[in-house]
């Protein structure tokens, strides 16, 4: 212990004596460790952090998939993650292994709830609410911040309507007014008492940038929502999460829950036909750890974050190589001292220990400086990763696990860059210094130096290739042909159902919206739709073309669909290719029509049949005559910008297909207004809010965005990863270039006498430059030769992140090689020029 203190003190003294070296090394380490700590903060917050609830480890979730938000029919691979309310009750009541089993709504979205505090005359607010079972808060073991939380007794049909307000919403919207507790709110125009406030740290059962403002008993769902899912056993819409009793075996419990599931499924409609009967025995529930809650965001970000961890690790390795080089050069410079110490009888072990201590102390200094880098880096990361997401429970301030991570990483880093130089220095021959001026430059130290530079070049190439591929992929993604016009288009999301409109009032409402918005200055066109392209929504149905046999479970008859007003195609720039679009004559009483896109025609009329005039239905052969195709429109990317355009059909609002179920009623409510402006629109948002409020005070703006902005929002994660990878790639390149520069400069300094001799023998400046440069380029070249196959291998990890470019994109590879070669040239040229300006007389004198 005493020896260690002595070593540390000695190390600190040595470092203080070499401020240039210490500063360079600490800064390099700060960048490397800081970048890793920043990424780790994100990884920890997103992937590892448990919910702030009591004993999160005993929470268990039924299911492992997102599957949001409402599922009819059977889940993919028969694994259930989403449950009907009736199924939830069945599971809850038959599994005593769970202390509590709670259900919570999957589809929580901003604007799904329109809230107004009853007493005040305030405007309605677009809010979000989550329907939860009465035992939700008990399951998490939470205490209210004020008032009380929901209880099972609130979750009974006919009970007084109660809601719990989130602390965040209370703070943000109601200035933490204590009188909110116990007061009556109008939620979707229904009076509901707010009985309490959630604890401040609780952000809900999942990580999201739009946590719910209100928690509502699930039995209130049919009152607040016209879509009423509660009583429909075929609609799965709830996540289920519970707390198991201590000592419960998860394996057997999973078997049991799957058995209970199958018992409940047997009488269900979907399991009556042959396909369903076959699927039943395979139906199952996977139990997953529920400590992190519903891990949708974790699943979405996992691969991206893991990629970033890998990349930042590589950058740190490159930084380590640089510092190893510096340490080595220092060790060489102190060879004489080392020789003397060894001559005085110091054991080799002792010298290695001393040098390693110095490296570790250096690494810890770097780690401390890295914390500052990490804090700034995390803030930048969060801004990049989650723009406009103040609701997300992720913070930049250092946490205990992050500090531990940074410390551990520092020690590891110190070992990595310290061991080889310590070994080599301790093996220096004491006689070496006596050997005279023309000793060989090809000793083990310079071999190690070169290997380090080669490694750096290879790693940089890998990173540059990755950055290039991701950037190119993002570029292709953003600049692909979506098939629509975004310039001067504005999307306004609304929720007429929350405002209390009934289906028979909608025609008048849409007419009024169109008229009033058309009258606004600068507005060129107005279109309404159920949802708009590339907002993340998708409605799908199975299509049966008239005259074709009943489709089986394995026939791909799915098509996406939307409802639009007559001008909508025009407003988003979707062209009518054949037949007609939707017109004002398509009303609730006229024949039911649809306009289909090109992909729909290719998918359902593959042999060149004429789609115009053909009919299709949504409920098998018996409905196949219901909807007539009257036109074909151009393809537009609607759902996933990374995938090909889906088959789509478009229907007028207000045409209700008589044979379809009541999901069709929900689709009558327009979710968005699309405005086409004549030019850029300053102050439009306030005007839009006023216009809507003038129609109906409960008609709130759920979301206001430019069309371009909405589409950009689809690429946040790609942007994050591409930008960070590019940043790390540049950092790696700079570090590698500095490394190459350092080694070359050091070599030149050592070889000054030799360069003098060569000049005396008639070497011109060009000869000297090319000699030094050749050596530098050789190292870069070997790095390239090693890096290329490694990059080709690593590209496999990127495949899933790429769009529109294969892993072996020659442009990217060529680009990365050129960038690396140019950097190596620059890094080599500076010392090469210095070498060429050697004065031969002086060089020969210093021998």
């Amino acid at each position, binding site marked *: 212990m005493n020896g260690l203190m002595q070593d540390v003190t000695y190390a600190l003294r040595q470092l203080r004596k070499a401020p240039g070296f210490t500063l360079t090394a600490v800064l390099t380490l700060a960048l490397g460790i800081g970048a890793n700590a920043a990424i780790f903060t994100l990884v920890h917050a997103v992937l590892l952090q448990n919910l702030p609830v009591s004993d999160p480890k005993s929470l268990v979730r039924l299911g492992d998939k997102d599957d949001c938000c409402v599922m009819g029919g059977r889940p993919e691979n028969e694994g259930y993650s989403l449950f009907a309310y009736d199924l939830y009750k069945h599971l809850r009541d038959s599994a005593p292994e769970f202390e509590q089993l709670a259900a919570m709504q999957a589809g929580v979205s901003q604007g799904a709830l329109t809230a107004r505090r009853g007493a005040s005359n305030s405007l309605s607010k677009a809010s979000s609410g989550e329907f939860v079972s009465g035992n939700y808060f008990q399951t998490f073991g939470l205490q209210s911040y004020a008032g009380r939380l929901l209880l099972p007794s609130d979750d009974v049909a006919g009970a007084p309507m109660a809601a719990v307000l989130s602390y965040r919403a209370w703070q943000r919207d109601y200035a933490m007014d204590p009188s909110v507790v116990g007061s009556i709110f109008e939620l979707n125009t229904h009076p509901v008492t707010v009985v309490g406030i959630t604890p401040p740290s609780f952000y809900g059962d999942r990580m999201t940038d739009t946590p719910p403002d209100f928690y509502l008993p699930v039995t209130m769902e049919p009152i607040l929502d016209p879509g009423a899912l509660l009583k429909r056993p075929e609609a799965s819409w709830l996540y289920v999460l519970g707390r198991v009793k201590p000592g419960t075996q998860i394996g057997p419990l999973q078997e049991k829950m799957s058995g209970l599931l199958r018992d409940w499924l047997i009488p269900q409609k979907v399991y009556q036909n042959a396909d369903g009967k076959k699927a039943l025995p395979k139906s199952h529930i996977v139990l997953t750890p529920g400590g992190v809650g519903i891990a949708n965001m974790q699943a979405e970000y996992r691969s991206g974050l893991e990629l970033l961890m890998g990349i930042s690790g590589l950058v740190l390795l490159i930084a380590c190589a640089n510092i190893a080089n510096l340490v080595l050069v220092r060790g060489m410079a102190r060879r004489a001292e080392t020789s003397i110490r060894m001559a005085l009888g110091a054991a080799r072990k002792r010298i290695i220990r001393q040098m390693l201590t110095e490296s570790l102390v250096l690494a810890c200094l770097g780690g401390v400086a890295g914390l500052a880098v990490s804090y700034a880096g995390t803030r930048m990361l969060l801004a990049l990763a989650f723009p406009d997401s103040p609701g997300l429970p992720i913070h930049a301030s250092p946490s205990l696990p992050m500090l531990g991570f940074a410390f551990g990483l520092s020690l590891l880093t110190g070992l990595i860059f310290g061991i080889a130089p310590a070994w080599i220095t301790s093996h220096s021959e004491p006689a070496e210094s006596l*050997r*005279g*001026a*023309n*000793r*060989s*430059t*090809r000793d083990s130290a310079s071999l190690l130096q070169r290997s380090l530079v080669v490694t750096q070049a290879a790693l940089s190439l890998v990173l540059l290739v990755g950055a290039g591929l991701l950037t190119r992929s993002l570029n292709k993604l953003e600049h692909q042909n979506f098939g629509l016009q975004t310039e001067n288009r504005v999307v306004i999301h609304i929720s007429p159902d929350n405002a209390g409109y009934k289906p028979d009032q909608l025609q008048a409402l849409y007419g009024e919206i169109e008229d009033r918005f058309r009258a606004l200055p600068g507005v060129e066109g107005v279109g309404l739709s159920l949802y708009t392209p590339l907002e993340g929504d998708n409605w799908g149905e199975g299509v049966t073309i008239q005259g074709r046999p009943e489709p089986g479970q394995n026939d791909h008859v799915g098509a996406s669909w939307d409802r639009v007003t007559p001008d909508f195609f025009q407003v988003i720039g979707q062209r009518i290719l054949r037949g007609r679009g939707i017109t004002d004559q398509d009303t609730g009483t006229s024949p039911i029509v649809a306009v289909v896109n090109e992909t729909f025609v290719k998918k359902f009329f593959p042999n060149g049949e004429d789609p115009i005039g053909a009919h299709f239905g949504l409920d098998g052969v018996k409905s196949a005559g219901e909807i007539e195709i009257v036109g074909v429109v151009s393809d537009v990317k609607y759902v996933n910008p990374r995938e090909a355009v889906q088959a789509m059909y478009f229907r007028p609002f207000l045409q209700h297909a008589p044979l379809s179920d009541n999901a069709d009623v929900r689709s009558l409510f327009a979710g968005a207004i699309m405005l086409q402006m004549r030019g850029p629109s300053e102050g439009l948002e306030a005007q839009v809010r006023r216009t809507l409020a003038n129609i109906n005070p409960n008609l709130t703006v759920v979301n206001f965005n430019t069309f371009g902005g909405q589409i950009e929002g689809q690429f946040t994660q790609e942007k994050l990863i591409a930008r960070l990878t590019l940043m790390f790639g540049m950092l790696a390149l700079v570090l590698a270039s500095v490394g190459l520069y350092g080694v070359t400069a050091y070599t030149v300094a050592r070889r000054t*006498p*030799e360069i003098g*001799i*060569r*000049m*005396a*023998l*008639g*070497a*011109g*400046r060009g*000869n000297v430059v090319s000699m030094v440069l050749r050596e530098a380029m050789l190292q870069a070249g070997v790095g390239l030769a090693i890096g290329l196959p490694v990059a080709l291998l690593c590209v496999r990890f990127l495949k899933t992140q790429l769009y529109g470019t294969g892993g072996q994109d020659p442009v990217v590879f060529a680009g990365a090689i050129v960038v690396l070669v140019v950097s190596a040239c620059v890094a080599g040229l500076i010392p090469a020029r210095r070498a060429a300006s050697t004065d*031969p*007389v002086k060089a*020969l004198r210093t*021998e």
Partner: protein
Amino acid sequence: MATDTMIQIEDLKKIFYTDEIETHALSGVHLNINRGEYVAMSGPSGCGKSTLLSIIGLLDTPTGGSYTLNGKAVANLNFADRSRIRNQEIGFIFQSFNLIGDLTVAENVELPLTYRAGMPATERKKRVQESLERVNMAHRMRHYPAQLSGGQQQRVAVARALAGSPSILLADEPTGNLDSKNGEAVMKLLQELHAEGATICMVTHDPRFAAHAERQVHLFDGKVVAEGELNRLLAEVEG
């Protein structure tokens, strides 16, 4: 033996400026060296012998005066031209041999030839072989300098100076780092080369070796002085 003038130096001056101190290393040197001549240069330490040799060898440029090499004024050539002439006309032999440790004996000897544009590899190999045979070191071609004795290293250095068939060999205290036996061997080698027609200018402060030369030049305090004069000046300094 030809008696035409190869090197003509008039009123050569060299001043070094370091930290505002002017060092007059050469202050008006006059010196002619004829083709085929063997000149020994001597004088006390710091009198400017190495400086003069550097300028003759075009490693350095004079501050003033003129220098004509083979009828061409070379005092104020640029770096590239000096490199080229140095490569073709000058052969250096240093006190500390100055072989390059990373290169084999053959590669060291070949080095000046590689800086000569357009000489084919076969020609280079031939010359390397010849020069090494001339100094009796051909059997050590593939060795590294560190594997040779001092005398052997200096013989390789002589071979390297010969390889480019220079007009003149410049040797700065070539025996300074050698014991007397090896020193004499090198001196004998230079004498033989002279006998074969080489022009040599050698710095030495050993009167025994200086006696090997046809002509002795004495330097004192940056000037060429006569032998008697030198002795008088030396006695003055000592007295």
